């Protein structure tokens, strides 16, 4: 018995990695779309985006920060796809930008791919503000003068004027931004919350799509009203995707769109499988981890009991 317990407690961690990889691969092959229960903060974000006055003729845009790199595509990539699909389905005009060089390049390709499926036109329905250094001076200029802070667009390098880009007609300062959604791996939310939001009247509405690590730090902002909604990690992306899929299906059935979004269509930038499918693997992985935690704790408790008995004798 002792040898068995010792074996469990001193198990080489590489066996655990191997089991996890087998479970991951198997569940990815056999995986299917999950039907998650939508978290309230995700629904709040969806509702806020839906209500944002950024439709054609409303002279406002939604700002989307794609502040992440290839390393967090598993979470942020899926969040981006779900949000951009929603913006395009709801005919919201929007601008993307990034504080990371990779995020800017990937974001541009990603948005172009999705825009291609929804027939969204560059310069009229959406625009790429490109890569910007996350410096205080940038944020402070952005509050009062968006064209000055951005300078040129990120795709063609043309100056941001209404003549070059019709979407910029009437867009001067952050007052003309209906909402900002920050999709990020970094602590960039703090900059927006502490610099930009207090300086805009009325207070800038902000949504936050973060990685799993940052979720707990984001909830206080949600509770205080500094955030209007939250999309936490892959789970948040799956929830949002479910809401967007439902919206798309309704529009498709009503004949308002010709085709549904195809996540596997040829693309410049290939994103991972839909979040709702990846959540299947996530769930399987959690079960494996729970199993290992259980085994480890049982082994520890039994060994402690044996040691106590020996000590007592």
């Amino acid at each position, binding site marked *: 018995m002792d040898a068995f317990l010792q074996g469990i407690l001193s198990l080489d961690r*590489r066996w655990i*990695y191997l089991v996890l*990889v087998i479970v*991951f*691969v198997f569940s*990815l*092959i056999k995986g299917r779309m999950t039907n998650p229960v939508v978290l309230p903060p995700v629904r709040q974000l969806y509702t806020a985006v839906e209500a944002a006055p950024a439709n054609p003729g409303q002279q406002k845009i939604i700002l989307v920060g794609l502040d992440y790199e290839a*390393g*967090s*595509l*598993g*979470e942020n*990539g899926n969040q981006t796809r779900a949000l951009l699909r929603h913006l395009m389905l709801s005919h919201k005009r929007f601008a993307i930008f990034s504080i990371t*060089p*990779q995020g*800017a*390049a990937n974001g541009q390709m990603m948005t172009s791919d999705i825009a291609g499926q929804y027939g969204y036109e560059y310069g009229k329905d959406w625009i790429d503000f*490109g*890569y*910007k*250094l996350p410096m*205080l001076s940038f944020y402070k200029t952005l509050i009062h003068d968006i064209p000055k802070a951005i*300078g*040129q667009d*990120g795709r063609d*390098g043309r100056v941001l004027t209404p003549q070059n880009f019709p979407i910029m007609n009437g867009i001067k300062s952050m007052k003309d931004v209906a909402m900002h959604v920050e999709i990020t791996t970094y602590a960039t939310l*703090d*900059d927006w*919350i*502490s*610099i930009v*939001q*207090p300086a805009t009247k009325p207070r800038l509405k902000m949504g936050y799509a973060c*990685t*799993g*690590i940052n*979720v*707990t730090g984001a909830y*206080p*902002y949600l*509770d*205080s*009203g*500094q955030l209007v909604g939250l999309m*936490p*990690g*892959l*789970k948040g992306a799956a929830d949002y995707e479910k809401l967007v899929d439902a919206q798309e299906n309704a529009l498709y059935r009503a004949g308002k769109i010709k085709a549904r979004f195809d996540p596997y269509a040829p693309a410049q930038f*290939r994103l*991972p*499988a839909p979040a709702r499918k*990846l959540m299947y*693997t*996530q769930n399987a*992985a*959690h079960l494996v*981890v729970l199993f290992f935690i259980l085994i480890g704790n049982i082994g520890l408790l039994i060994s402690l009991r044996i040691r106590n008995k020996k000590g007592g004798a």
Partner: protein
Amino acid sequence: MVEKETRAPAAHDGPVESPAWIIAIFIFVLAFLVVGVLFHTYAPAQKDFRLWTGLLGLLATVGIFSVLYRENPVFRLFEHIFVGLSVGYGIAAAWFQIMLPQWYYPMMPRSIVGEQGGGMWLLFLALPMGLLFFTVYFPRISWMNRFILSILMGWAAGNALQQFIGSLAPQIVAAFRAPITRYNTEEVRAGLNNITLGGIHIHLWWLVSIVVLTCTMAYFFFSIDHKRAGWVREPAKVGRYFIMIALGTIFGTTVMGRFSLLIERLDTLMNTINLWKGVLAYWFVHHRTFFH
């Protein structure tokens, strides 16, 4: 007294392998890229270079993951490639997307750079000011570094104060919520957070919030000896459990996040393998050669 001989720390503590390993792997990666370019240029059926970059991505991922088994030269090579690529890409992006449009073009006259020129020659002063940071490498003039650092520190301190207030003030306001009111606040729905008892409204979650906040703060309240003062000790004990719950939550979401990243990688790898399976099957079926 014998002084101990000081020795410069090694670059890494792992086993030192033959440089032949590094050279061999490097040549392999280089050859891989060359074949990829040739493939992209000459293969008639597959003009898509992303097929090749996908395969390179697969190799890089497997190379990085190989550290899970043990430290090895393949891992180190891809680690260095990753760091080098990130830095190189970052510098190029900073120049073309920041320095050129926001500094160089606005500074230069139109007669030199064309329509993009702004002629704001005062922007040139940014260059010597920026160079002051590098004086730290020259002992004789390193004192000049202090000018620019003092400006930066003062500027950062002022902004930090502003940011602190902008970020935390709404949260402090939000924390002051009455747990029991005689009026029905419209901002909360009926439920556990709005229980009505004879004209009094009890907001349970706000009550929980106050208890958790007080107990957690008590844990960090060291001005009074916890052993002697029970009114601090007992809430602090409870606060400790709340902290444990919070840390557990952070750890749990971190694990969940890491799994998501791994799942994405495996999904991408499987897609690449499937793509290549399809391409190879096509070649075999049509008896095609790679280059013709």
